[in-house]
């Protein structure tokens, strides 16, 4: 088996590798070779085993079986530090930077230049600047990482990898948090890394990106390797077929008709939070899907947070169901609001707690009397909600962090489904979700609208906004730049408004 995949150029070869977690076979009998100077993409559904494969190479997990060879020699990667020493580094699906430290310290972490045991800051700065120059990725070395936008933070991670003399770099869904033009930039960078002789492993659910950036594409399904082929012979349709095991279908379900001009469920008037957004006017009717478009940083999530009560405003009004809306988040949830926040890890999940508790948390009142929980009723409700989202999991009592990224996202949908809210705010609801599951999330959103829920959809994917919204409100620099619907609602109009600067 090993001979069939290895060849003289292979930097890293996996032969017959498998990984089990308890009863779950995350990977079985994987044989794959990664070559220097090539971008090798991994595609597959949520839970297919892509991240697990990367984690085996990075020493985060150890294989249950099979061998890994570097430059033709068998190696055992005992821990992350060992992987680093071998030049195997990862850009994590969720970034792992020190937010309060500056760019330089983050890049140099663990590799500071020292003299007589003390850090030589001048020499360290020079080393950091050298790496920035060599790869033409310049950042202010003294900027605090937590203040940087996501795209820049990612560059810090990449620079850190490069400064460690990486030979193989794994990108696990690096564009999931980026706006389109930033993603384009990153893809250029990845090509440059390959040109500089690095082996790159690229994991993504964006098939167009994959086709654009990679040399070789491997499809994984249920922990098995389905195919490894040159990117030149693949198309969107062959990849979708490979990933889902089904033929290609249109991504977007038919939308229910837009509601007639009824009274809006939410009406936002002149809402202002100084320095964040200004004079926002916005309405969502029951049964209507309103897309909130704009560039990353335009203030979309902030407006959503303000409506949800998670961000204080300076002036303006929010009406819900014809009545002025005030009070804390709890009150708004009780009135029928639900939010799927942008960052599942920071704002939504309790990774160390059971899936069940993660789903039920905002609605415990329904399953309790005088604070006493009726666990049977809770479990029944959660089971139904989880089944409706096609989440893949072992048991509801498993910890949330045993789920793959996309299945973690489905926890949030299951949570919202239990609430049966009247207004659902979905902020980047398909982040990290595979093509098949995306379609089911789109169907879920369309179905909720058909049942009369008002939906405010925030997305950085223009196709998602176009394919799913009755009406689109475009924000630019904290102001409403355009409200588009009907014939005026075109991709071009949305993009122009987004870039208009308010």
């Amino acid at each position: 088996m090993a001979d069939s995949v290895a060849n003289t150029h292979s930097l890293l070869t996996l032969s017959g590798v498998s990984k089990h977690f308890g009863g779950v076979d995350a990977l079985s009998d994987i044989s794959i070779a990664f070559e220097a100077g090539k971008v090798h993409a991994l595609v597959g559904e949520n839970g297919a085993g892509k991240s697990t494969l990367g984690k085996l190479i990075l020493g985060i997990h150890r294989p249950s079986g099979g061998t890994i060879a570097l430059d033709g020699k068998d190696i055992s990667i005992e821990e992350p530090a060992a992987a680093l020493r071998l030049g195997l580094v990862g850009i994590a699906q969720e970034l792992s930077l020190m937010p309060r430290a500056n760019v330089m310290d983050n890049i140099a972490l663990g590799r500071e230049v020292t003299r007589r045991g003390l850090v030589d800051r001048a020499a360290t700065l020079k080393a950091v600047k050298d790496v920035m120059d060599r790869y033409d990725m310049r950042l202010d070395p003294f900027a605090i990482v937590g203040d940087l936008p996501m795209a820049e933070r990612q560059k810090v991670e990449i620079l850190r990898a490069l400064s460690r003399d990486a030979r193989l770099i794994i990108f696990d869904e690096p564009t999931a948090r980026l706006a389109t033009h930033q993603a384009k930039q990153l893809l250029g960078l990845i090509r440059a890394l390959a040109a500089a002789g690095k082996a790159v492993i690229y994991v993504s659910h964006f098939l167009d990106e994959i086709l654009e950036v990679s040399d070789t594409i491997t499809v994984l399904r249920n922990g098995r390797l389905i195919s490894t082929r040159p990117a030149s012979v693949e198309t969107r349709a062959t990849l979708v077929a490979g990933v889902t095991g089904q033929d290609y279908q249109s991504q977007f379900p038919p939308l229910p008709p837009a509601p007639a001009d009824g009274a809006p469920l939410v009406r936002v008037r002149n809402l202002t939070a100084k320095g964040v957004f200004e004079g926002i006017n916005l309405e969502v009717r029951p049964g209507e899907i309103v897309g909130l478009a704009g560039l990353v940083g335009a203030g979309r999530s902030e407006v959503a947070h303000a409506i949800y009560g998670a961000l204080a405003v300076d002036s303006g009004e929010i009406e819900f169901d014809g009545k002025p809306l005030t009070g804390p988040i709890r009150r708004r949830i009780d009135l029928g609001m639900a939010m799927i926040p942008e960052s599942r890890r920071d704002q939504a999940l309790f990774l160390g707690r059971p899936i069940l508790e993660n789903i039920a948390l905002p609605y415990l009142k329904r399953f309790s009397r005088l604070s006493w929980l009726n666990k049977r009723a809770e479990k029944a409700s959660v089971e139904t909600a989880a089944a409706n989202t096609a989440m893949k999991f072992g048991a509801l009592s498993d910890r949330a962090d045993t789920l793959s990224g996309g299945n973690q996202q489905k926890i949030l949908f299951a949570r919202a489904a239990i609430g049966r809210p009247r207004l659902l705010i979905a902020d980047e609801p398909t982040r990290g979700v595979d093509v098949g599951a995306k379609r089911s999330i789109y169907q879920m959103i369309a179905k909720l609208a058909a049942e009369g829920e008002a939906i405010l959809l925030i997305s950085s994917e223009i196709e998602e906004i176009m394919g799913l919204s009755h009406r689109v409100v475009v924000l630019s620099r904290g102001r409403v730049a355009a409200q588009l619907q009907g014939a005026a609602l075109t991709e071009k109009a949305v993009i122009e408004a987004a870039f208009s600067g308010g």
Partner: protein
Amino acid sequence: MQRAMNFTRTYGILIVTVLMFIALALTTDGFATWRNFRNILDQQSTVLIAASFLTIATIAGNFDVSVSAVYVTAPLVALVVENATGNVPLAIVAAIIAGLAMGLFNGIVVSRFRINSFIATLATSFMFFGAGYLVSDRSLMRPVSDAYPMLARSQFLGLTSATWVSFAMVIIASVLLTQTRFGRNVFATGGNPEAARIAGVNVPRVQIATFALLATAAAIAGVINSSRSLSAQPSDDFSFVFAVLTAVIVGGTSIAGGQGAVWRTVVGAFFLAFMSNGFNLHQIDPIWQRLIEGLVILIAVGIDAWTQRNSR
């Protein structure tokens, strides 16, 4: 293999405690006797009462050093009232109100002003110790009624009332944590405060409640201690909180928050109690006891960290 690993990780401290129990029972004269167990239970009662509720506060992501100060000061309040009125129930109520007030103060300082809980409660400790000196006029206090000493010393079904109170408090803490909405909110608050807030949990209120419960429990433990020793004395002795914290940590509740259980703390407390009881029965020099105890705590924490890493 994986399953065995998970099992050891979850029940490791329980297994070790049971093994030690068996070893001591087989090798040590006077260990496996009813009399000895009754004494151990009685001695552990004050630690268990406070540790059950420190577990809750720890899971909510906070630490409370002022447990010692409340433990010292609340019984002084009780005895001042008792000396003045001779009314024991009133004395208990006064101590509980004092504990509750100190806990609310801690909770408000930590949650509203967002001060690190360790530092905030270190500061409030000195205030509470100071209050103890004030109410007692810096002197040792003794109960005047015959009823006060009986609070901890009455016998029921062969166990002391102190033991029964500790059982009740352990059960209350455990039920609160595992069977109520409040318990879920505690885990959420400690596990990911921002996600808890977004999910509609009133994070400051949960934190205040955990501090208030803990200080109330510490006040009850203090009253029991004073009833047992027939006196209370103002001091600024921090040792109680460390005994309590050790039980929580050895049991395996994570100081990072969001993870843990009351049963763990109970097992942790008995692990430590059996160990020191074994030392005493073997007449080992107390200096060596300390050294070995420290080592065992390190090993317990080390094993925990090791299994956590290797389960990945």
